[in-house]
């Protein structure tokens, strides 16, 4: 027991050292600019007030939550349905279509950047939430991952449900989804995090600062106009903290879920 405690402390210290860049960021976000440049720490909340107030990070935070949330739900819905079809049905062209879905994993997102930009421009969807969300909805990885997972679920369960007269969507919803919950949850987290951290697409697609996500807000703050302000590092660090923190807190809340979920599909 004592040994355990000791090891826990050692692990904690090792973990803190590993995370020290993040921890230092948080510390720095509370320093005044002057004290940062002079080296004598003076604590303040002014950076957060500036970030949330003058620099609109509250709005960016809500935008990030909204966009990532909708992308996650939509992405999961599409992926689960497709994964179910690929795992459970033998249909002409099925292998080809599955290959077409998996192949999207190999495709560099940037090849689609200019064309998607032009597509959304033609649809008049740039500078809208839809413009942020639509191109991110299809997720080949989630479909691939869930298909592997669903294949591991005994077919006998589906058969039993079909015997009882269930329709395919009911089988999916009542049999497959509950069993695949951990995998779906982990994919959901994966999609959410990916979308949360997405930066090149919103950078290109969004001009209206009311629609900025946190990544864009932060990148923009970091790359201040060269003809303008001195880099206010403590403010940048406050903005970084705001960008990191929701994921960090969410992570602490669902860590076990997340880890358990992620691992279930990756290793069979």
């Amino acid at each position, binding site marked *: 027991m004592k040994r355990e405690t000791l090891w826990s402390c050692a692990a904690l210290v090792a973990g803190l050292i590993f995370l020290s860049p993040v921890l230092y960021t948080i510390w720095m976000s509370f320093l005044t600019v002057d004290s940062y440049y002079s080296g004598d720490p003076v604590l303040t909340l002014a950076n957060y007030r500036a970030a949330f107030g003058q620099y609109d990070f509250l709005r960016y935070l809500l935008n990030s939550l909204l966009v990532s949330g909708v992308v996650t739900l939509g992405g999961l819905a599409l992926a689960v349905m497709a994964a179910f079809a690929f795992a459970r049905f033998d249909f002409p062209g099925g292998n080809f279509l599955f290959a077409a879905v998996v192949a999207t994993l190999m495709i560099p997102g940037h090849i689609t950047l200019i064309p998607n930009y032009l597509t959304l421009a033609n649809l008049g969807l740039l500078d809208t939430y839809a413009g942020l969300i639509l191109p991110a909805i299809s997720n080949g990885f989630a479909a691939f991952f869930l298909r592997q997972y669903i294949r591991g679920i005994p077919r006998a369960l589906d058969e039993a449900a079909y015997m009882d007269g269930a329709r395919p969507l009911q089988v999916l919803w009542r049999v497959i989804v509950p069993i695949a919950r951990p995998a779906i949850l982990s994919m959901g987290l994966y999609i959410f995090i990916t979308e949360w951290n997405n930066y090149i697409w919103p950078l290109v697609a969004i001009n209206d600062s009311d629609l900025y996500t946190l990544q864009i807000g932060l990148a923009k703050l970091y790359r201040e*106009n*060269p*003809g*303008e302000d001195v880099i206010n590092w403590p403010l940048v660090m406050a903005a970084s903290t705001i960008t990191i923190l929701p994921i960090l807190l969410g992570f602490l809340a669902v860590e076990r879920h997340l880890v358990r979920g992620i691992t279930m599909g990756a290793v069979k």
Partner: protein
Amino acid sequence: MFDTLKTVAATSLLALSSNAAFAETKVEFWHSFSGNSGEVLDGIVADFEAANPDINIDAQHIGNYNDIVTKLQAAIPARRAPDAVIMEVTRYGLFADRGVLTDLTDYLEADPLKDELFDFAREVGVYDGKNFIVPFNSSTPVLYVNTAIFADADMEDVPALTTFDEILSAAQQVQAKLGDQGISGIAAPGQFARWGLIMANESDLIDSVSGEILIDAPNTIEAYEWMASLVHEHGVASVDGVTKENNGRDAFLAGKVGMMMNSTGNYRRSKTALGDDLLVLPMPCNKTCAAPIGGAGIGILSTSAPEVKDAAYKFISYAAGAGSNAKWFAGTGYMPINKHTKDQPVAEEALKGEPGITVAIEQLSVARGRPRPPVVTWMRASEYDMWQAMALGQHDVAQTLKDFASQTRAEEARTN
């Protein structure tokens, strides 16, 4: 199908324009000013709107000059370009050439502003004989000196800093005396200052009259060799400022660098940071006295509706007027572009006891405009990598510039 679409489009356009006749005209305006100068600009916008209640200026801070070029170019196929946009004085030629910007010659001819603008300021807006932008903020690089650092390095009296050699030896003295305290002699010159130093060496990147590419001219090579040697040979400039231009300026403002060559747009901020320790000198005159005129003007997009263009021009003219320009000059350190600016009380106030600004204004007598053919946009975007390779001693200066010059010539042939 197409006809239906056309009808729909035409009807909605009609609806839009007839609406506009009653409602206020909205002008979307992209600019590059944030922080302190952003606030000054917002003030000018607010004053204009108060005087013109039927016009609403939707001013948006887009980013720096590079960001504006990028965003504007990206906005064209999306048909979401603004109505008015700030464009840096060497980088609007591309947009003028491709018909993106409205020819403002007729507007300016009919505007008394035309005669109020200094010649140098009006000239920056002319491309191919026509006026495409009206100047808003004007600047020139100057040499900023931290006299406290110089004093610590046994240069109580700041020595003459007019030739490359004099600057180098002062930087070396600072570096030798204070280098171990983390203070460096000079900030690596940014692109604007580099261009200035090339001019001071009696050369240019592109000849402003003939348009000839001079990137590999002997005097250009010599200037780059000197600039690069500050970093990798003499070690008097930190490489931090090479990879990110702002770092050099930040270090100067933080009191860690003896000298910096940078835009007058940094004056107000440097004064705040260094107070009386700040000394402003003209750019060096190595082979000749010359400096580039920088800054930006405001252009109007050719896609905007006629009444929006009229409203936008009204604003542009107002922003360049003596009253606005005086506020702008006093609040930022950008130079006056209007002959009557200095007569405005705010400007008089700002000029008092600020010899730094006077230096910049006096330097205007040797300042010149720079060429702005379409290829300049490409050249400026590409120059950063070339400079890094030279300053970090990765590539031979002469060879790099020869290659860069031939690439630029090829690009010019392709795009002009």
